[in-house]
């Protein structure tokens, strides 16, 4: 998962505290591997340094100050870029692909163009590997096969996800506490 982009995607819905972000990142993107609070705060600090989020307000109460962050125009542009430019197709992309799909649903944007772009990028890489295996020695061909099978698995997952987007949207959006 790309924690910075998950954070940007959640902040696009509205300003949030670090605590809320940690809870939502765990819930949507890392239910089996909760991220540390420190990672969320470090991510926010880096995003702030790069101008992608800004500190919107500080609430003073008992205990530590509660800092509330908002996404900037630069942050929105970065999120848009990340969502629309396909990832480099390599094996084991599932976490990043999944993050993209869920963020698209949360943002209320169509998932199909994102899936289509990823599929196209995957097939481009598979075409390259198919050309390589055609003209190479067996060890190289087998290495290409390894990559091809993993990319194919990603593609099958993309197709299954595309076919179940409506169900996923209901599952992701039904709880109203994310508003």
């Amino acid at each position: 998962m790309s924690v910075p982009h998950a954070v940007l995607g959640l902040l696009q819905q509205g300003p949030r505290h670090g605590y809320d972000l940690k809870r939502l990142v765990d819930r949507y993107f890392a239910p089996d591997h909760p991220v540390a609070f420190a990672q969320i705060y470090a991510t926010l600090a880096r995003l702030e340094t790069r101008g992608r989020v800004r500190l919107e307000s500080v609430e003073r109460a008992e205990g530590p100050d509660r800092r509330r962050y908002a996404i900037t125009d630069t942050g929105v542009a970065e999120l848009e870029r990340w969502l629309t430019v396909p990832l480099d197709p390599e094996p084991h992309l599932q976490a990043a692909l999944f993050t993209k799909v869920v963020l698209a649903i949360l943002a209320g944007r169509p998932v199909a163009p994102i899936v289509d772009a990823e599929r196209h990028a995957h097939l481009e890489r598979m075409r390259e590997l198919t050309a390589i295996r055609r003209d190479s020695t067996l060890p190289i061909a087998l290495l290409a096969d390894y990559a091809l099978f993993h990319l194919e698995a990603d593609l099958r997952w993309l197709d299954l996800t595309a076919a179940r987007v409506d169900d996923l949207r209901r599952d992701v959006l039904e709880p109203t506490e994310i508003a």
Partner: protein
Amino acid sequence: MTSLATPATATAADPGSAAAAPILTGHDLHKRFGVTDALRGIDFSLSPGEIVAVMGPSGSGKSTLLHCLAGIIKPDAGTVEFAGRRIDAMSESERTQLRRTAFGFVFQFGQLVPELTALENVALPLLLDGTRRADAEGRAAEWFPRLGLDGLEGRRPGDMSGGQAQRIAVARALVAGPAVIFADEPTGSLDSLAGEHVMELLTAAARSAGASVVIVTHEPRVAAYAHREVIVRDGRSSGPVAA
């Protein structure tokens, strides 16, 4: 893993990227079966020598698209043009003649004639087109060594493996020197290795013959043999259409 780096020329020689005039086009194709709209205004274009994979979910209309492009069925609306001729406006007999002479077909289960030998199956398109038997079988026999089928000439389909039968189907599709080969799930009944073998032979033979290929498939590894993919969803094309 540097040996798997993107080769500079891996896809540089794609015929589809050339500015050649298309050999086969479908424009705004519509087809309805009962209450089901199988095609809803899809466009398609194929360049000479180009290999295109048609992908999409089950029931998306990809096989219907292939059947319209190949003149097996007529679209309800829209035009199909092959080498400057309107296929959708042809009579049944004209389309049959076109399919025999200009097109080749590979289907999922080969669809070989079980009573005929492998050699007779490969020669069949030529025999149906009026070629003398000796000539037809002579031309058919040339394909056996090229597709690794030496010694199988006298076998009947029931005595061959699935991979062998599918290679016979590839030879039959190529024997008449077609301009376009249509392949509908050509590896759907084969294991991975046999499927790879069939795709290697099909695409290599098509390349050397200068034929274009339209492959309907749901398998990404099969689609990776094509120069580009067309995604069909709900009877329309979807996704990037790199040409």
